């Protein structure tokens, strides 16, 4: 016990001493679920942000000043997200590339707006984020009303004659996405056979699987994250239920395959076209590979968000959030995501969604 305590003290001391070293003049941040069950996404954001700041500083920083990056942890919890947002305001952060979960981004955006901090979320897809008319809110990812339409049309085209169940995890992201998909599917003339809510964080979905088996469900659309998706397909396989699960962009993490195991084969999800395949991104992707990291999922969306901010700040001639926001609206920016611009609401002009398929522990574009 004594050695443990000493070790703890030593660690604490090291952390405190380490903090004073950087001499940055512009402080930016990325905030996401660095801990908790969605920590894989937090890691993607942190890696993307660290690389972006490193690359920008190597070229002399922004507006002639070096950047310092802070990494905040909201654990995907709306209450903690607000606390972290306030912390960022106290620390003098001018720009936040975050958060990840829509349920966190939306309440945090109120704080950023009030404190004059620019926010570009690389991952929060709930339409509400940019619909509330906040002038300092942007995103580099798509919206669930686009994503849901793609998913709904896809389900109708491929599985229109099958029995479809729509599930969601009651979160802002999951419920929003499930509702959009349901609306698109119903508008296309297909009625779902089941609409249910699950509780995220639980491990037992056997009762749900049995229920779907009893109803003869063949296709499941889930508005939710990869842990629950993995558990559901795994338990469906255990019970001998042959279903195809489709979900949204929260399945774009290889952790899904390690949870679901062989049952992950055939699972579908929607996500923006893979930026790793973008020629503009090839150098950055190689740099990540050299670090032993695969720039999957939202890594490059975070990198691109910081690039867009940096270029807008240069154009605005100031890191002031309102001026950078005006520049972001006015112009196009060369990023790893390609040439992107932002509309009046702050949504990215970029490419929308495509369908991916899991196979053998990896995902790629869906092909018939």
């Amino acid at each position, binding site marked *: 016990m004594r050695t443990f305590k000493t070790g703890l003290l030593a660690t604490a001391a090291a952390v405190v001493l380490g903090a004073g070293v950087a001499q940055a003049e512009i402080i930016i941040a990325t905030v996401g679920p660095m801990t908790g069950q969605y920590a894989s996404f937090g890691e993607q954001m942190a890696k993307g942000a660290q690389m972006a700041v490193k690359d920008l500083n190597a070229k002399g920083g922004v507006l002639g000043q070096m950047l310092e990056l802070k990494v905040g942890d909201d654990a995907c919890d709306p209450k903690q997200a607000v606390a972290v947002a306030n912390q960022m305001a106290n620390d003098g952060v001018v720009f936040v590339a975050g958060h990840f979960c829509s349920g966190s981004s939306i309440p945090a955006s109120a704080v950023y707006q009030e404190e004059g901090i620019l926010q570009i979320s690389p991952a929060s897809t709930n339409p509400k984020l940019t619909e509330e008319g906040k002038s300092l809110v942007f995103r580099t990812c798509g919206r669930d009303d686009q994503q849901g339409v793609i998913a709904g049309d896809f389900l109708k085209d491929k599985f229109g004659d099958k029995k479809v169940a729509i599930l969601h995890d009651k979160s802002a992201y999951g419920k929003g996405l499930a509702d959009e998909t349901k609306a698109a599917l119903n508008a296309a003339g297909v009625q779902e056979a089941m609409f249910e*809510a699950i509780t995220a964080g639980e491990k037992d979905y056997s009762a749900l699987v049995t229920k779907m088996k009893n109803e003869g469900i063949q296709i499941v659309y889930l508005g939710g994250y990869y842990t629950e998706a993995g558990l559901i397909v795994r338990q469906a396989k255990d019970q001998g239920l042959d279903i195809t699960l489709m979900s949204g962009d929260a399945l774009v993490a290889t952790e899904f395959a390690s949870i679901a195991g062989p049952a992950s084969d055939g699972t579908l999800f929607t996500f923006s076209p893979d930026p790793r395949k973008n020629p503009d991104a090839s150098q950055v992707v190689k740099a990540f590979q050299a670090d032993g990291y695969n720039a999957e999922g939202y890594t490059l969306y975070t990198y691109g968000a910081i690039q867009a901010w940096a270029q807008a700040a240069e154009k605005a001639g100031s890191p002031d959030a309102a001026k950078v926001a005006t520049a972001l609206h006015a112009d196009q920016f060369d990023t790893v995501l390609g040439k992107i611009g932002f509309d009046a609401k702050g949504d990215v002009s970029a490419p929308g969604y495509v369908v991916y398929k899991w196979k053998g522990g990896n995902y790629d574009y869906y092909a018939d």
Partner: protein
Amino acid sequence: MAYFLQQLINGLTLGAIYGLIAIGYTMVYGIIGMINFAHGEIYMIGAFLAITTYLVLGGAEMASVPLGLMAMLVVSMVFTAAYGWTVERLAYRPLRGSFRLAPLISAIGMSIALQNYVQITQGARVKSIQPIIQGGFEIYSQDGFGVQLSYLQIIIWLLTVGLMIAFTYLITSTSLGRQQRACEQDRKMAALVGVNVDRTISLTFVLGATLAAVAGLITTLYYGVIDFYVGFLAGMKAFTAAVLGGIGSLPGAMLGGLMIGLIEAFWSAYFTIEYKDVATFGILVLVLIFKPTGFLGKPEVEKV
């Protein structure tokens, strides 16, 4: 009928896990009249130890599956028991004889400390393993709906029943059981007639932790996915199970666990899953209104 049967199997398996955890709550309450809020975390640690042993043994390439499972069970039980003992020694014994709420708050603190400890040392990511025991058979089929019973579910039931028999014997017919019951009735008097109260209480924590370790192992095998937060939700449900069955009563805890498992499964089966937890806790409220001591609880309790 087939559908009902399958949901019964689902509910009983889930209930067995809740029941095993609930026994830890109920035993500690019975003997020192305190809710050990860190018990859910003890269960989580049991699950982590099982997965760690599995990986140390070589993961999917382990030489012999039955031996590997025995090793997982033993290692997980022994080390989790050590955690249970340590928690009691560090957080509760120094506060014994202090005012009533002190150990309760200390328990909540311990729960948070253990959760963060595992989060920091093991990382926040979900840990998963691939199924070790696969397969099962179809016991009944009706209109194309086959009722699946997996080997693992049978193992879980046998393990639970076996442990219940062993524990009932331990409490009713051994010297340790007599000492425990003596402490439960009157700690001061038990001490006067020569029962080592501190040791008995320590052993109670060890026993509860052992059962939680088994539940943790089962979770690891059955669901294959755990994280540092898994103890919170399961602990809540198990605590509810202990209250429902009558806190302080060993068979009550098992009964409560099974009931909660069954309520969850059948509510999900015939009503909307969204209100599953509302239903579970609603029933708890109803039971407590009409039978405040739970199903098998004794009515005398004066402690918190």
